[in-house]
C-alpha cells in the first residue's frame, strides 16, 4: 500500500453513528447529498473543512451504534484517507473495510497529536510517523487486505468468484 500523508482532524471518544450521520438525513437520495451533514450534531463545520487525503483521529469506540452503512460510506466520500482511533465498534469496522475505507487501531497516537498536525501512515512498514515519533500498527488480516485492495467487498467478490 502507498504511504498516506494527511492533515489530522481530532474527535473524542464514543463518536456514534448518529453523530456521523443523523437519522433525519438518511432519507436523502445519495451519500453525496448526506455528506455535508456528517458529524453535524458534534461539529457542524467539520464536513465543509475536510479535504481529500485528510485523516480523522478518534478516541475509543469510534463508530458505535447502529449498523447504518452510510456512516463509513460518507467518511469515504468526504475524501478521508483513513480513520485512526484507539478502538472501533465492530459493525462499523466491517462496514468501513467493505466500503474500502481504511481503519487503523493505535492506542497512543490519538493523545499525541492535535488537530491540524500532519502525519504519515506507512502501512507496508506498519508504522505511523507523527511529530517525529514512530507509532507501531498491527498488520491487517489477509482477508481485510484483499477487500481493501479491491476497493471494497463487492469488488472483491467480483474478483473472487466472477459475481
Amino acid at each position: 500500500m502507498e504511504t498516506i500523508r494527511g492533515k489530522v482532524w481530532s474527535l473524542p471518544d464514543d463518536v456514534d453513528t448518529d453523530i456521523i450521520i443523523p437519522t433525519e438525513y438518511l432519507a436523502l437520495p445519495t451519500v453525496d447529498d448526506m455528506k455535508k451533514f456528517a458529524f453535524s450534531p458534534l461539529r457542524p463545520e467539520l464536513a465543509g473543512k475536510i479535504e481529500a487525503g485528510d485523516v480523522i483521529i478518534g478516541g475509543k469506540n469510534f463508530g458505535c451504534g447502529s449498523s447504518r452503512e452510510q456512516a463509513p460510506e460518507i467518511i469515504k466520500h468526504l475524501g478521508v484517507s483513513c480513520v485512526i482511533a484507539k478502538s472501533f465498534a465492530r459493525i462499523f469496522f466491517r462496514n468501513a473495510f467493505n466500503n474500502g475505507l481504511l481503519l487503523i487501531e493505535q492506542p497512543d497516537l490519538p493523545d499525541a497529536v492535535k488537530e491540524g498536525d500532519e502525519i504519515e501512515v506507512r502501512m507496508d512498514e506498519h508504522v505511523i510517523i507523527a511529530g517525529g515519533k514512530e507509532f507501531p500498527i498491527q498488520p491487517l488480516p489477509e482477508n481485510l487486505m484483499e477487500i481493501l485492495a479491491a476497493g471494497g467487498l463487492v469488488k472483491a467478490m467480483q474478483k473472487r468468484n466472477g459475481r
Partner: protein
Amino acid sequence: MGMTMGEKIIAAAAGVPEVKPGEIHTVKTDYLMSNDGTTHLTIDMYNTKLKHPRIADPKKLVFIVDHNIPAENPKTAAVHKKMREFAAANGIDFYEGKGVCHQIMYERYVEPGQFIMGADSHTCSYGALGAFGTGIGCTDFLYAMVTGESWVLVPETLRFELTGKLREGVYPRDLILTIIRDIGANGANYKIMEFGGEGLHNLSVNDRFVLCNLAVEAGAKTGLCEVDEKVRSFLKLREEKYGKPAGGKYFTSDPDAKFLKTYTYDLSKIEPVVATPDFVDTAIPVSEVGEVKIDEAFLGSCNNGRIDELRVAASILKGKTVHPDVRFLIAPASQEVYLQALEEGLVDIFLKSGAMMMNPNCSVCWGSCQGVIGEGETLISTGTRNFKGRAGHKDSKVYLGSAATVTASAIAGCIVSAGGIHSKL
C-alpha cells in the same frame, strides 16, 4: 480444550469440529434479516453492481419494514415499494407493519443454535433463544445473500454469572443498564456476552431478550443466554401459534470452556436506574437523578415493548392520568403483542389515562418517523439508545429507564421511579 456456547455455534455454522478466539472462519447463515433502514441499498447494489446476480437461498431471507412504517413521506414510501416488489419477485418472506424486525424474528423464526445475521445492530437479541445473532451492514448482507456465507472472527467470551432474583419493582432493563455502566460502552467490544447461572434461569425468555438486545450497547458481537425448559416451552407455544416445528440445537459452554473474564451479579442487589444523556453506559440510581422535568415518555422498541412491559405500565397507570405537560407514547413491539394487550384490557387503561397508542414499529427509538422531540426537550424512553440527537433535535435529551420508571415519570411529569412516585404526586 472446551468451547463456549458461542464458539460451538460458530463451529457448527463453519462445519468444523473446533474453533478458537482470533481465528477467522467462513460460516453458513441460517437466516438473513434486513429492514427498511438499508435494504434498499442492498437491492440497488444487487441490481447494479453484480455481473450475475443470484440469491443463494431466498427461504433464508426475511425482509421487514419497521423503521418508517407507515411511510411518512414519498422517499420512504419508495424504499418500502422497492423492498415489497423485490421480495415478491424473489420469493422472500416480507412483513410490513407487523412489528419491530427483531420481535418478528423472535416470534416466528429464530431457533436455538442458529447463526443469524441481520442488517441491524440489535440482531444480537436472538441469544434469548440460544441463537447467535449479529448485526452487519448492507454490503455484508449482499455478500451473504448471494453466497449464503459470510466471514466471522471468532470472538472471546465474557461470562455473566447471575444469581438470585430481581426484587419487586426492578426489571431486566435495570440489570442490563447496570452491567453496561460497569463494563462501559466498549467493555464487550468484539466479544460475546454470555449470560447464565440460576439467576438467568429465574428470568423469563422475554426478560432474556432484554439482556441480549442491549449487548451491542457494550460493543458485543452478540449476547447469548443458556437455554433451558423455558425456551422449550416458548418454542412449543410458537409451534401451536404459527405451525413452525419446535426445533433447534441446544448448545451450552463446556465446564472447561475459556472465558476472557467472568462477572458475577446478584440480581437481588440491582436497583432501578436511568442512563443519562448522551451515552448508554451512564446508569445512575433513579433516586439520584434529581429534578428532571420531561416533555415526552416512550414505552416500546425491540428492547422493551413486549407484553411484560405493557402489563407493568398498565398496573402503574390504572386509575391515574398522564401529566398534562407530558406526551406518553406507547408502541407495542408487534401486532401479536398489541392483540394480547387488547385482550387483557391494557389498551383501555392506556387510552383512558391519556396515553397515545402507536402502531407496532421502531417509533421514537429510531428518531425519524414518529414522536420526534424538539429543541431543548427531554424524553424518558425504554428505547435502545440515548445518543445526542437520537430522538430528534440535536439539542434534546434522552434518558433511558425501565417501563416502570418511564410510566411513573409520565404520570409525575418528571423522572421518578415507580416506588418513589407517591412523593411526587
